[in-house]
């Protein structure tokens, strides 16, 4: 079966990439100034003996390359390590925090796609008319404004001034309503959505702006293709041409961008989670860096790196789904 073999092949190709990521992160984290043991003791007076014992216990007294080797052998066996600061396995910590981050990133993408594609098509159809100019300005602002700033502005306007939406935290839809003090699922999920709106817009605006511009360019190109002219000459209504004939081939670059921007979105999530006080992986990452929690930093980086690779593979697979000219590396 072509698809399965292709996926496995592409994932195997990702191994060197992941090794590269691990080396860079490991070296960078360890080169950062500060000493995790002293940070852990939080300024308490401690004798050298105690510090040495702690270092020994976590293997911090060994040379860098030995520690790296130990870490990697653990990783291959599925062991992401043990957070020295929180004294819990890294995988547990990440699983705990993965839900909110996934919820945030996915809803931001949903927001971006649902808005960007129609707007891009309209801009392409009304090329160089006022609608197009407005969309160009909106896109420019969207691309050039940092997500945390958008977040802060949204909080000021909608949470502080208007008071219509909450400014912090998330309500997790997978929890029972009672846990959040809600009487029914309807109320619970309404609250979920209300909490999600602002961070979703803050994180999704950059993606929306990028996608909108690409969609416009692609649609303009695709509307000038011979097969679109042919469809017109055969009396195909203009809206069918837009929705079907020109649309489908224009979506390939969109998929690429969604796949590649996954890392940007996860990076943005770090900031947006901090602004909106969401307990996701992004915030965990910020805390890990502040505490020089080596194992946690490594764990999060490796997982994010892996997700990026998966994103690229999914992109390639969907390419072949949309474009019949692309095959899974097999001859017919």
């Amino acid at each position, binding site marked *: 079966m072509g698809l399965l073999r292709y996926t496995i092949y592409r994932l195997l190709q990702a191994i060197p990439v992941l090794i590269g990521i691990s080396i860079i992160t490991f070296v960078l984290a360890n080169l950062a100034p500060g000493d995790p043991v002293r940070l852990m003791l939080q300024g308490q007076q401690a004798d050298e003996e105690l510090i040495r014992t702690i270092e020994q216990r976590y293997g911090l007294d060994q040379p860098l390359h030995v520690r790296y080797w130990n870490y990697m052998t653990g990783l291959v066996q599925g062991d992401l390590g043990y957070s020295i600061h929180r004294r819990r396995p890294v995988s547990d910590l990440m699983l705990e925090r993965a839900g909110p981050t996934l919820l945030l990133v996915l809803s931001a993408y949903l927001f971006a796609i649902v808005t960007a594609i129609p707007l891009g098509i309209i801009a392409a159809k009304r090329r160089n008319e006022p609608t197009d100019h407005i969309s160009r300005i909106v896109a420019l602002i969207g691309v050039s404004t940092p997500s945390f700033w958008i977040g802060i502005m949204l909080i000021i306007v909608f949470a502080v001034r208007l008071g219509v939406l909450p400014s912090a935290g998330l309500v997790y839809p997978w929890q029972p309503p009672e846990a959040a003090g809600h009487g029914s699922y309807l109320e619970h999920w309404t609250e979920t959505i209300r909490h999600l709106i602002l961070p979703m817009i803050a994180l999704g605006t950059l993606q929306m702006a990028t996608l909108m511009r690409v969609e416009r360019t692609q649609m303009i190109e695709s509307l000038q*293709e*011979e*097969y679109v*002219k*042919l*469809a*017109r*000459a*055969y*009396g*195909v*209504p203009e809206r069918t041409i837009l929705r079907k*004939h020109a649309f*489908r*081939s224009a979506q390939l670059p969109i998929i690429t961008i969604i796949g590649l921007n996954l890392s940007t979105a996860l990076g943005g999530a770090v900031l947006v989670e901090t602004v909106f006080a969401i307990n996701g992986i992004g915030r965990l990452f910020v805390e890990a860096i502040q505490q020089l929690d080596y194992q946690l930093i490594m764990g999060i980086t490796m997982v994010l790196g892996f997700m990026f690779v998966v994103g690229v593979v999914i992109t390639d697979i969907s390419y072949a789904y*949309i*474009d*019949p*000219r692309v095959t899974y590396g097999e001859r017919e």
Partner: protein
Amino acid sequence: MSSEPLLRVENLKTQFFTETGTVRAVDGISFEVYEGEIVGLVGESGAGKSVASMSLLRLVESPGEIVGGTIEYKGETIFDLEEGPDGELREHPDMLSESEMRERIRGREIAVIFQDPMESLNPVFTVGGQLREFIEINRELPKDEAKAEAVRMLREVGIPDPEDRYEEYPHQFSGGMRQRVLIAMALACEPNLIIADEPTTALDVTVEGQILDLVDDLQDRYDTSFIWVTHDMGVVAEICDRVNVMYLGEVVEQAPVDELFYDTKHPYTSALLDSMPRPDRTVDELEPIEGVMPEAINPPSGCRFHPRCPDAREVCTRVHPENLEVDQAEGYPHRAACVKHDVFDVGYDESVPLEKGDEAETRVGETGSDENVDSTVEEGQASTDGGKANEANQTNRSPNRDGGESRP
């Protein structure tokens, strides 16, 4: 001939409004297409053939626009401008609306076959799906019947295993096979007129032959009329019943095909025929037409072909010839836009022949001043002298330069 024509085009003008000026891509052409005939539209690249054919469907893209003339199809008005009481041009009330064009004319009555079969099919949909969609739209058949019809048409145009090929994508078809699919699309909609815009230009010669045979055969059976756009006189000879020769947006000669070949009335048509590669002639015997076709943005004064015409005389730079009837053949008029024919009576015989070298200079001299015909001629002659002086200068200069180089 006795019956009404299927399509009547009169004085059609299509212009492109570009930043550098107005391009008169089609500048007042007239022709008819009768039922069951193949009418050729011939000319060099840039003569306005494709723009003319897209104008017939009212599918000229911005910045292009049809600015004048009449197009009538089966008594319906595809395009007509009339002068209102205020002197402004306005659309005739009988003119079909955009949605009527789409629903009643495009595909259903007039179908097209495009030049490039590689680009004309959508790469992300199956060949059969695309064919079926056009059949559904233009013949209002339900999906399954349209599919059966699509498969039947694929078989009809000589595609083997049509049921299997129906599900395949365009990239799995060769160029010739794709062109067959496009022909199937055109025929499947059961139009009365098919515009074939250089449909064999992108194909190699053996495939071209097959396609021409196929069209000939299908045309006999379906009795569809064709407008065959091409620059290839060989194709014209093979397939067309009557021919319109276009030069710079104008029809310069119009005749039944045999008449055009054996009793050519316009120097441009002769030039086209002489420049045609043939097995019985060597490259040395080929006579390419002098120069390139001028831009339609600023056409030469008088007869547009005069700068390249071997028969050009002084009068040709002044008089712009209409496409008048100069002869009759097979019950059709033989029209030619050349003042050397007696019907024009503008003094061609008495006029001084233009020499070719001079002509090139004349064109340079007259740019931008073609409103005043008299001064154009004077200016042309003046610059002719200048041109000669220039030439003399150059011949003088080159030995000097050679000397300069060898001196050290």
